[in-house]
């Protein structure tokens, strides 16, 4: 497996970035704990991708439609890598894991499952999650698991842009009109109780050592950067405690079932269908 990417000083190459197919066909097999970790990260990316793709044809402008779709596709790519790798532990494909797991088998956090709301709320969610994800992947590139490190390396470049996109919009909405500022502040307020869940050291992460990034180790830097971005936009960092039941099991998630119903219906009604 070659994960090298060669860009010259004068031209960006087509690139030799890692692909999910390479992971599937490689000898890399995740052990049980690593697979469960990859599934946590993959499920977050998959759920947010599914949510964001609902903006297609509904964004405020055509250009923003494309931007959100791009981000959704990047996240879908991350999910494909991570679920493909997770599946190697159990002889399952990415599709098995995405389409044929039930609600309580997913490990996504509630933040990414929240409804899009208006554009302000979506940008608030993007700001929180991409800031967290940027911190996460910039550490995961040092994972002692070479496949996870390669996936993080590929994803990091994309997440940098997601973070920038969200921060730019946060500035414009926050410093825009009274209405735009109210809307993104409402978005932040309605989502903030789901932030703490991102930093919980859920199983099996503490046992993975240098293979994984301990979520609690991301808390300080992530919150610091969020505070900077929010205050730069003249907005207020909400002060509220985290919502209860934050353990990624879905037992306390209202939204997950609805997302899965839409995402999985075709694959389940027509198993093996291709399009």
């Amino acid at each position, binding site marked *: 497996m070659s994960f090298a990417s060669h860009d010259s*000083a*004068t*031209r*960006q*190459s*087509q*690139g030799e970035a890692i692909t999910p197919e390479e992971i599937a066909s490689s000898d890399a097999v995740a052990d049980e704990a690593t697979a469960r970790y990859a599934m946590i990260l993959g499920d977050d990316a998959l759920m947010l991708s599914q949510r964001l793709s609902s903006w297609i044809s509904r964004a405020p*402008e*055509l*250009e*923003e439609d*494309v*931007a959100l779709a*791009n981000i959704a596709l990047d996240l879908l790519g991350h999910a494909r890598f991570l679920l493909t790798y997770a599946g190697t532990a159990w002889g399952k494909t990415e599709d098995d894991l995405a389409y044929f797991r039930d609600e309580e088998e997913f490990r996504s956090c509630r933040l990414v499952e929240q409804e899009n709301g208006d554009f302000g709320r979506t940008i608030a969610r993007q700001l929180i999650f991409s800031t967290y994800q940027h911190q996460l992947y910039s550490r995961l590139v040092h994972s002692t698991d070479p496949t996870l490190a390669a996936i993080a390396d590929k994803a990091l470049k994309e997440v940098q*842009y997601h973070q*920038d*996109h969200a921060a*730019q919009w946060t500035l*414009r909405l926050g410093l825009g*009109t009274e*209405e735009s500022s109210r809307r993104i502040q409402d978005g932040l307020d309605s989502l903030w109780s789901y932030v703490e869940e991102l930093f919980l050291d859920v199983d099996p992460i503490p046992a993975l050592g240098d293979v994984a990034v301990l979520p609690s180790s991301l808390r300080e830097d992530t919150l610091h950067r969020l505070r900077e971005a929010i205050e730069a936009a003249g907005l207020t960092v909400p002060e509220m405690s985290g919502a209860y039941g934050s353990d990624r099991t879905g037992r306390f998630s209202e939204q997950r079932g609805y997302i899965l119903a839409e995402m999985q219906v075709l694959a389940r009604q027509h198993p093996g269908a291709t399009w």
Partner: protein
Amino acid sequence: MTSIDPADSGSWPLWEVFIRSSRGLSHVHAGSLHAPDATMALRNARDLYTRRNEGTSVWVVPAEAIMASDPDSKGGFFESPQGKSYRHATYYTQSEGVKHL
């Protein structure tokens, strides 16, 4: 929003996008897009016009800042060089004794 003019119904201004595909080449017009300001125009250009590794540099220019020639103008504007072959190097014969031309 208190926009009343239907011609300006709150839509974003138009920007022209120029992309340089590789160092040493010129920026070439790639297309146009809408964006609320220059910073976002650059990001939208990145999303719309560099999806397949087309660029190493992007310029965005407010469309209204471009003074364009009249697309219908031919005659006096574009055709007067016709017949002025002395403006081409090939019009001239090489002088004797000039070796490296």
